[in-house]
Each structure stands twice: as C-alpha cells, then as structure tokens.
C-alpha cells in the first residue's frame, strides 16, 4: 500500500511512458528480429552441414571400402577395406593436430599457417571468409571428411600389394605434403588458385576436382608405376571377387556425393540445390555413357561398367557442381563416362601399367576432364563468383564469354598434376627407404588379409561347426 501511494503521482505519466518506451525499442526490436532470423538461418545451415559431413564420411566407409573391396580378389578384401578405414582414423588425428591449420589457416600462397594447430580458436564462432553462418568447428569437421576420402582413393592403385605399415606412413606424409598445399591453394585464405578470395589464378573448383580427384588420381598413377605390377599381372586372371559389394559401394558413393557436392555450398540455400541437381544428373548420364560404350564394344552392358561410369560422372561434376546448370551437367557426365571408359579399357591396356582398381583412370582422368569442362560451362547465372570492384557480376566460364577461365582451369590442373606427381614420387622413395613399400612375393600370393592382418574375409568352410 505504501508503495502504491508513493507511485500514485507518477501513474498519470504511464501512457506517455508507454509511448516513449515504444519509440525507444523499435530499432532494438528490429535488431532483435534480425538476430532471430540470422540465428534461424545459422541453425538451418548448420543442420545441413552436419548431415553433409556424415554423408561424406559415408563415402569412405562403407562406400569406397565396399567399392574397392569387391574389386579385389577375395584374399585381399579385408586389407583393402582396412586401407579406407585406416584413413578414417589416422587422418582424423592428423587433422586435429595440424592438418586443418595447414589447409585453412591464413598463410602464404601455397600453404596455411599454424594458427589453428590443435584446433586452436576453432569453435562456435564462424570464420566469415569460409562460411559465415556455421560454426568454424562444423566447417572443420566437414573439410576433414574430404581429407579422409582423398588419400583413400589412391589405395585403388596399389591394391593387393602394398605393405600396411608403408601405406600408413605414405598417407601421413601425403596428407601433409600434397593434400594440404593443394587444398590451401584452391580453398584457403590467400591461396594461389582461390577463386572467391582473390587468388592469382582463380580456379573454379567447387567441391574438389583438382584438390581431391586430380591429386589422388595422379598420385595413384605414380604409385602404380613405382610399385610395379601385381605378381601374375596381366597373364593371370584377376577378376573382381564380388561385383555385388562394389555395386553397394558405388550406390553409397552416389548418395554420399550429395553431401560432398551440395554440401560444398556451405549453406542450405539454393546453391546447394543447384549443386545437388547437377551432381545427380551427371552421375546418371555417365552411367549411361560408360555402359553404352561397353555395349557397343563388347556386345553387353556390364553392371561394373554402369557403376564405374556413375562414379566417373560424379568425379567430373565435382569441380563444376556449383557453377553449372542442369543441362551442362548432363553433358559433362556423358563425356566423362565415355572418356573414363576409354582411359580404363583402352589406354591402360595399351600402356600396360597396373592401376589395379583404376584410381587414375576414373579419378585422375575424370577429375581433369571435369576441371576443364568447368571452365567451359561455368555460368554466372548459377553462381556469380566473379565480381568487379563495384560488385558487378563478371562472366564465369566460356559459355558466359570468359575465355580466360579455361586457361585458369588448365593452370589449376597443371599445378595439381605436378604437385601430386612430384610429391608422391619423393614420398614413395622415402617410405621405400625406411619401410619398403611392397610386400614379399610370397605374402602377395598368400594374400594381404592373412599376411598383413592375420584374418580372412570369408570363413565359410563347410566342415567347420
């Protein structure tokens, strides 16, 4: 009561105070709403990016593990799957310690610094240069999944004959000396080839045509040449022991690739949709392209051919996914399917190297054709990546009238090829000196499952209880 009496003189002012309060809070209220909108967008983007991170991990295990595991002889199925799985564990630790920093911290034109070593300052706050609406930690874990699958792809070239220990050492060095510089050059702050942050040779690589597929594909070729052919190749027949496993693996790769390419939009907006559609379309026409080429040449369209084609198309659309429309995507897939079939079925046989599971023929060749075709078909209407100082949109690819872009793409391809080839060769020499890269001929004949891991993939003795 006392309180009320004391307040009474002020009561008549209440309506006025209300008006004043309303005037004072209007901008606050707008700011508050804006904040809520930004938070909602962040939540949506973050949810999508976390799902994409999981999808890209799914590509390595079980996707690639099954795809490669089915293609080898049954005495090597576990060893081949283990190579993919080992990357999931090993590269993760390396990434946490230094890998992420070397790729994405500010540095020079070629490699990132060490400011994010041990994930220092990588937390909930976004890094505006990369992805302004998601925590940097989300960006970090998403990029890790790329760093995992890239070396795992190389395993196709030295399948059935590389020492497990040597493979581990090789992959650690390769991640640091080949992957990290390439990823930094194309995607990192200050990178030589970075298209969105002002690199000197802006190379369009939406999701990793150069960074992932050319580096792994070219390194695979060097590995195949360095290790030599498998015992008995090419006289002894070495057909895939289970195209069924490969089939499941390829279908998982197709699904996972939506995370890989559409996720590379780094938000859940319309660009992600555009990349999703392009990805799917290219996989479809590439499967058709490879299978039809086979149908014409061998009289039958094989299942392995169709699934290999889809992977080739997914590889080729990777750099282009966020820059091209659906119709060019159909065309890029078709070209990649036929081109990779030619590389694998004709060129490899002619040259006689034993790229056992065609890591070069699919990823090296598909990545290169994709990177170059990105320079042809990139459209500013899909993704206005180049702008002048006033913010006006500039043409993207040849189709827009930017003929210089093909040259920039070629520069990116060239740097990726040289870095991968030289880096891989030096690392192999080093690893060979320390551990020896290849298992003994006896171990190879017995199979890597038994000799490297002491297990067998299939224990189906009828007489065993």
């Amino acid at each position, binding site marked *: 009561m006392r309180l009320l009496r004391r307040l009474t003189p002020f009561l008549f002012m209440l309506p006025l105070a209300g008006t004043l309060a309303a005037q004072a809070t209007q901008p606050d209220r707008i700011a508050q709403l804006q904040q809520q909108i930004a938070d909602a967008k962040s939540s949506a983007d973050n949810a999508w990016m976390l799902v994409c991170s999981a999808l890209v991990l799914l590509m390595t295990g079980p996707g690639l593990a099954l795809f490669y595991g089915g293609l080898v002889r049954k005495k090597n199925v576990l060893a081949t799957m283990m190579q993919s799985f080992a990357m999931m564990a090993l590269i993760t630790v390396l990434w946490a310690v230094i890998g992420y920093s070397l790729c994405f911290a500010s540095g020079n034109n070629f490699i990132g610094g060490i400011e994010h070593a041990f994930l220092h300052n990588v937390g909930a706050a976004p890094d505006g240069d990369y992805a302004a609406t998601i925590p940097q930690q989300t960006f970090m874990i998403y990029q890790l999944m790329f760093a995992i699958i890239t070396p795992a792809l190389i395993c196709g070239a030295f399948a059935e004959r590389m020492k497990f220990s040597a493979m581990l050492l090789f992959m650690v060095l390769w991640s640091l000396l080949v992957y990290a510089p390439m990823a930094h050059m194309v995607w990192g702050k200050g990178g030589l080839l970075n298209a969105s942050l002002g690199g000197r040779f802006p190379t369009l690589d939406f999701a990793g045509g150069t960074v992932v597929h050319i580096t792994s594909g070219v390194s695979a070729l060097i590995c195949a040449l360095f290790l030599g052919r498998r015992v008995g190749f*090419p006289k002894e*027949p070495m*057909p*895939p022991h289970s195209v069924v496993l490969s089939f499941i693996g390829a279908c998982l790769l197709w699904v996972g690739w939506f995370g890989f390419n559409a996720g590379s939009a780094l938000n859940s907006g319309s660009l992600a949709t555009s990349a999703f559609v392009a990805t799917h379309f290219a996989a479809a026409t590439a499967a058709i392209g490879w299978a039809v080429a*086979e149908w014409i*040449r*061998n009289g*039958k369209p*094989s299942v*392995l*051919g169709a699934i*290999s084609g889809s992977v080739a198309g997914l590889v080729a659309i990777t750099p282009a996914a966020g820059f091209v429309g659906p119709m060019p995507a159909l065309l890029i897939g078709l070209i990649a399917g036929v081109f990779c*079939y030619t590389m*694998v*079925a*004709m060129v490899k*046989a002619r040259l006689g190297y034993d790229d056992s599971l*065609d890591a070069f023929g699919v990823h090296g060749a598909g990545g290169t054709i994709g990177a170059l075709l990105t320079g042809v078909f990139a459209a500013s209407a899909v993704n206005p990546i180049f702008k002048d100082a006033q913010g006006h949109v500039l043409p993207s690819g040849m189709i827009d009238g930017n003929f210089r872009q093909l040259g920039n793409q070629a520069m990116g391809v060239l740097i990726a090829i040289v870095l991968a080839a030289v880096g891989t060769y030096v690392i192999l020499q080093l690893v060979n000196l320390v551990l020896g890269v290849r298992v003994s001929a006896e171990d190879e004949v017995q199979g890597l499952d038994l000799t490297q891991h002491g297990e067998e993939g299939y224990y189906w003795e009828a007489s065993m209880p």
Partner: protein
Amino acid sequence: MTKLETVIQPAKFDAVKDALIEIGVEGMTVSEVRGHGRQKGHTEFYRGREYTVDLLPKVKIEMVLPDQIVDRAIQAITSAARTGKIGDGKIFLTRIDEAIRIRNDDRGENAL
C-alpha cells in the same frame, strides 16, 4: 558293386536326384566342382579386360550301387540330365571290391 561318378550341369541336379531316388537309389555323395570337357568356357569383361573362364561349375554325384540297378540308374541319369547340347556331362563306372559300414561292420552289398 559298381561306382558311378556322374558329372552334370548344376541346373539338372534336382531332376537327376529325383530320378535316382525313384528307382531306389538310397545314398549318394554330391559335390560342387568345376571343370570342362569338350565344352569350351566363356569370356567375361571387367572394365574392358577380357577373362576367359574355361572351368565351369558342375555338380558331381558319386554312388556305389548293386550291379543289378546300375543300368537303370544310368538310364535315369541320362534321361534326366540330357539337353542334347554340349556340356551335359559324363558318367564314369568303376568296379568296387569291397564296402564296409562303419557302424556295424556290414560288408559287401549289405553295406550299401
């Protein structure tokens, strides 16, 4: 006693087995085998690489029969397994000296 080693197309196994049981055959040993006679294999393509597969999957049935039903067994097998095309299989006959049932030492045809 006569031993019949019969190699047939895997797809014909059920028909052959039923025909044999029909005429009173009581036991057989069956294995999945691979091989070829005059039938040539086929070619497979994996990513453009051609593989010639010359050992084809077959089913081998081994039976030791009393002499009086051997002819009927041969007839049952040939009529059930024949398609008339190359690759239908073969029957090999061998004389058997002795048979012993492990459970109770029965000998000769009693052991079959």
